[in-house]
């Protein structure tokens, strides 16, 4: 029987998760108490609660400089996990704000509950120090997200989206689980850090290890929607309720990256240097395919889906570089990308709520109808395209810098050529918004307060990550330091 002593650190390590559970309980109670027409107020409460958890965690829940393995080796308490958790919490808070005024979404307690549980799963994904917890965390994240994608049960597309996500997710997670079980079979332990030590001794054959790498990458590749595991993304993104899509394409993707970085960097590097080549292939394929397919899209959500595939590719460049700078760049990239893409989806929700359309052509004349909303869209799209003084520019420069530093100039050039293609389709949308006229120009486009609040926060965040740089980069480097 294992002696089990509780220490304060153990609770500090899961402070955000505890907070999320409490918040989830509050949501459940409120769902019962509040009359149906007033339930949207839960959006404010959830968002406020999440921001509260962020603040409390930053003051009371910071890890020390030494990483710790707690809860019997299940939970790793380090800066990488902490910073990613903050990113998820922020993403969830913004998503709650975007969702609260959407009919049949923001006035249902289940929505917020599922959102919070998924966020908790993501936090555990980032912190998992053991394959078992890792798998559980991935499922805790995925299952609520399947439900959320299919939340609009009366809409065919949403149902289709939920099912598609479920099938793809179940398939890839089964393959990944097979990889995990092989790892356990080879090494006799499920702890990621013990595994790393055993693998590095060279007791595991290289060929089986390479096989495991591929199996595991299937699961991770699905989470970050990297080519060739991206097929679900456009359909799921299009069908899912837009706030959920925003959450899927940012926080969920970031969670996938957190796991991918930890597992790949801890388990594989010494014994299997060729893992970087595999990831490089994923990166090039994701960027190239994502960007070239985005060119042909007429639907805003599908465009953003393909663009998000491409962005997974850019972020992978930093992973391929396999250096502290590279990892810091990935963290920076994901942070900036989260702000940016959430802003883009926020504009899409706000627009859809009034017009009921996601077609790019319907955005014509938006700059005359709603100058503020257009400005937010422009900031978001320019940041996606990598223009200063916005966060996306710094993220791109950092990943390209990491690639040049690692003598991967060819990869940096591929990234650059891709960002040119990216610029083209982002500009095409901006052209529609700013240049084209439409008959609806005179119709007002009311934006409720929650969108204004969220979009202002996000826009400021995008500009700050693009100009202040140093504090955010410091977070990136501390997170990266936890991996080396």
């Amino acid at each position, binding site marked *: 029987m294992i002696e089990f002593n509780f220490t304060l650190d153990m609770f500090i390590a899961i402070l955000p998760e505890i907070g999320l559970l409490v918040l989830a309980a509050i949501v459940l109670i409120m769902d019962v108490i509040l009359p149906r027409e007033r339930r949207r107020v839960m959006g404010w409460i959830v968002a406020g609660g999440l921001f509260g958890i962020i603040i409390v965690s930053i003051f009371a829940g910071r890890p020390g400089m030494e990483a710790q393995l707690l809860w019997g080796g299940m939970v790793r308490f380090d800066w990488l996990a902490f910073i990613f958790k903050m990113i998820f919490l922020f993403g969830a808070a913004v998503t709650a704000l975007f969702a609260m005024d959407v009919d049949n979404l923001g006035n249902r307690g289940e929505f917020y509950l599922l959102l919070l549980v998924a966020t908790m799963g993501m936090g555990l994904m980032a912190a998992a120090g053991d394959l078992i917890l890792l798998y559980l965390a991935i499922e805790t994240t995925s299952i609520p997200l399947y439900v959320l994608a299919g939340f609009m049960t009366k809409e065919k597309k949403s149902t289709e989206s939920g099912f598609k996500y479920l099938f793809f997710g179940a398939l890839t997670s089964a393959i990944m689980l097979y990889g995990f079980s092989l790892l356990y079979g080879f090494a006799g332990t499920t702890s990621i850090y013990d595994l790393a030590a055993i693998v590095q001794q060279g007791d595991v054959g290289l060929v089986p290890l390479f096989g495991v790498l591929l199996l595991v990458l299937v699961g991770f590749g699905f989470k970050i929607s990297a080519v060739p595991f991206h097929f679900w993304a456009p359909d799921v993104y299009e069908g899912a309720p837009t706030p959920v899509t925003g959450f899927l394409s940012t926080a969920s993707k970031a969670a996938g990256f957190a796991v991918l970085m930890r597992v790949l960097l801890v388990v594989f590097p010494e014994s299997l240097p060729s893992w970087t080549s595999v990831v490089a292939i994923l990166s090039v394929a994701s960027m190239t395919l994502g960007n070239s397919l985005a060119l042909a899209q007429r639907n805003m959500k599908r465009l953003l889906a393909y663009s998000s595939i491409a962005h997974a590719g850019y972020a992978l460049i930093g992973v391929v570089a396999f250096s502290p700078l590279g990892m810091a760049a990935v963290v920076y990239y994901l942070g900036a990308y989260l702000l940016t893409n959430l802003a883009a989806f926020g504009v899409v929700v706000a627009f859809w709520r009034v017009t009921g359309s996601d077609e790019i052509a319907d955005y014509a004349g938006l700059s005359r109808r709603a*100058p503020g909303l257009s400005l937010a869209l422009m900031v978001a799209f320019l940041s996606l395209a990598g*223009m200063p003084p916005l966060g996306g520019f710094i993220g791109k420069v950092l990943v390209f*810098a990491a690639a040049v530093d690692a003598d991967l*100039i060819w990869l940096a050039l591929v990234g650059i050529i891709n960002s040119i293609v990216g*610029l*083209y389709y982002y500009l095409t949308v901006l*052209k529609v918004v700013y*240049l084209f006229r439409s008959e609806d120009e005179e119709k007002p486009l009311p934006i409720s307060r929650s969108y204004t609040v969220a979009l202002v926060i996000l826009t400021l965040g995008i500009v700050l990550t693009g100009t202040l*740089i*140093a504090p955010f980069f410091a977070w990136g480097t501390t997170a990266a330091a936890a991996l080396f």
Partner: protein
Amino acid sequence: MQFPILSVIVFIPILSGLLILLMPGHRKDEIRVTALAASLIALGLSAWAYFAYDIQMGGYQFVEKYDWLPTLGISYSVGIDGINAPLVLLTGIVMFTGVLISWGIDDRPREFFAFLFILATGVFGVFVAQDLFMLFFFYEIAVFPMFLLIAIWGWKQTREYAAMKLTLYLFIGSVFSLVGALAMYFSSGLNTFDMQLLATANFSTNFQIFWFPFVFFGFAVLGGIFPFHNWSPDGHVAAPTAVSMFHAGVLMKLGAFAALRVGIMLLPEGAIYWRWLILGLATVNVVYGAFIALVQTDFKYVIGFSSVSHMGLVMLGFATLTREGLLGAGVQMFSHGVMTALFFAVVGMVYDRAHTRNIPELGGFSTRMPWVAIAFIVGGLVSMGMPGFSGFVAEFPIFMGVWRVMPIVAIIAAVSIVITAGYIIRITGQVFYGKVPEPLEHHNIGDVTVLDKVALGMLSAILIAIGVYPALMVPLVSSGVNLVLSLLGGA
């Protein structure tokens, strides 16, 4: 602490641009006055910096340096020397006159001035940057607003095409330079983006030869170097008047300046190795641009291609790597900036009244708007390199420098002067003299406004002032050239 004049110059435009964005869109006059005030301050400060620069002392002055991202050696660092001081002044001039000339813009002036000012901040930032990262940062800021300015307020027939073409061309160029810059940063091992330190990094010859084309041509795209000049005439023509002025007057200098500052000054051995290529391409620019300008029938295309031709002279001056050539190129950047701003202003004024730019359909404008005709003739004389005008001060040293390096190139390039004279005289004759054509008789073409006259008068006066009294600029640029030459090994 001294007054942070350069930072104020850099940030005044963007801050006032944001202020303008916050104003209600229908209060157009308030917006215009705010824009004018901001540009006047920027002009005043840049003129002050220009004249307060101490030539005897030389080097970089008005230096400010703050850490930006110290972990990677990125700093916010500004300063001016003899090369960029005239360009800062030029930007101030073009910004001010551009606002004057855009007074009549009635479609969303709020957004127009806001974007124009964001662009101006980018331009100022590049000119004064002492840090390579900062230079890129501002460079990209300067590229993007162009897209919206051309796409929204441009000439309806080609604006979408031209805006997209221009933005993509410039973006492609800049990202290639970026890779080169990153390579410099990592291979120097100095962990700094400070260009003065990078200049001392002693990159190996092979490294310089490999990366120089990335950096130099990446920037030179914006300088309009052949065969990457194609975006420029289309862009000029599609852009609204003030944007054309900014574009040809200032932005193309941005490319040339960055190519000099980053390409030639940080990778001097690469520059020596590739100078023949640059010399050759620039000669094509000069002669080919002039020929194309000669056969255009669209007034604005003539000026667009003349810019290609004149920017070729700047590149030619760079490629000589001699004192004369660099001096001439430095003055030419300023002179051409003012001259071409003047030209585009004139074209805009003619077009606004005649609603056509087709040269055969125009005529007799000197009787309707004498100020504009005189201004155009002044610009034309500068363009031909007539003594007494700034063009002569710029072009003569360039040809001297080229002669020292390769006389045959000088002879070929000099042909362009004759061709330039050809198209300038043709336009002057057809547009401003002769009879007003029948269809335009009914248009009731009036004279230009007072604001327009102020702008034209100011631009013309500057061109003449430099021409008759070159000491206003030549010693300053010459002191800047010393620094470049010292990096090139004191040639």
